[in-house]
């Protein structure tokens, strides 16, 4: 890790945070809201906050977005 990532990891920590499982529980709802053009941070602020602090859940979130994109792409073309 680079030193700038180290200090960001330390300083971007907030007092309240949910667990990874709680984040996972709501992440499908969160992603559907994004796809529907809504802002999920109003309804699920704790998920947004966790994604900003937990790089593992953030990576799974990005993978989910990519997987859904792959599902749609091909469904449209055939």
């Amino acid at each position: 890790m680079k030193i700038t990532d180290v200090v960001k990891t330390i300083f971007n920590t907030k007092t309240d945070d949910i667990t990874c499982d709680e984040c996972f529980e709501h992440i499908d709802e969160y992603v559907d809201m994004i796809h529907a053009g809504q802002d999920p941070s109003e309804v699920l602020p704790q998920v947004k906050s966790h994604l900003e602090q937990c790089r593992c859940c953030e990576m799974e979130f990005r993978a989910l977005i990519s997987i859904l994109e792959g599902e749609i792409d091909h469904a449209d073309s055939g």
Partner: protein
Amino acid sequence: MSERTNQDWLSDLQSESASYVDALEALRAHLERGVFYYLRHDRSDLSQLPDEDIRQMAQDFVQDALIKILDSLETFRGESKFTTWASKIAARVAISELRRVRYKDYSLEHLTAEGEIMPDLASLGVTPEGSPHPENYAEQQEILHMLKDAFENALTDRQRTALSAYIFDGVPVEEIARRMDTNRNALYKLVHDGRLKLKHYMEDQGLSLEYLLSLFG
């Protein structure tokens, strides 16, 4: 793919008729397309693998995911599309498996043994020549000493081990958890509490994120 409603998916996947097989195969094909796409387009670490290997990987991950999906149908609360819910399970299976393979030879031993756990500035990407502000090098070293003090004084032994793996080695929480005989949630909390302690320690020394980013940027 035919458009099934959430209710269609649930009743078909819980039925004992031919519609079960139809729904299962439709879901399998759907998830395999998505997982293949993710592995092929978003994983630079897999870019050297041929399509057929990636396809096989996607099939294996989806097979594991389908078992979990069928096992946990009753936990689907209908607050998202069924396919989004199923896809998040596939995403987690795929990533967990890739992490397990990537870190299979990683050990915490170098962090728990007596001795130096702090990497030097060079291994954190900071060298006098490489820095955009070489005149700051002495101060950068000072900050690293402060960080080292924070690690030594503000953390418990377990926090120190977990945080060193998480922050310096970049190891995912579930992989650290496995090696420390705990689960991802508990390990995340241990790391999170430790991060807060380090943050407060550094803030007490008058340091801010903005300042540090300008110093090291």
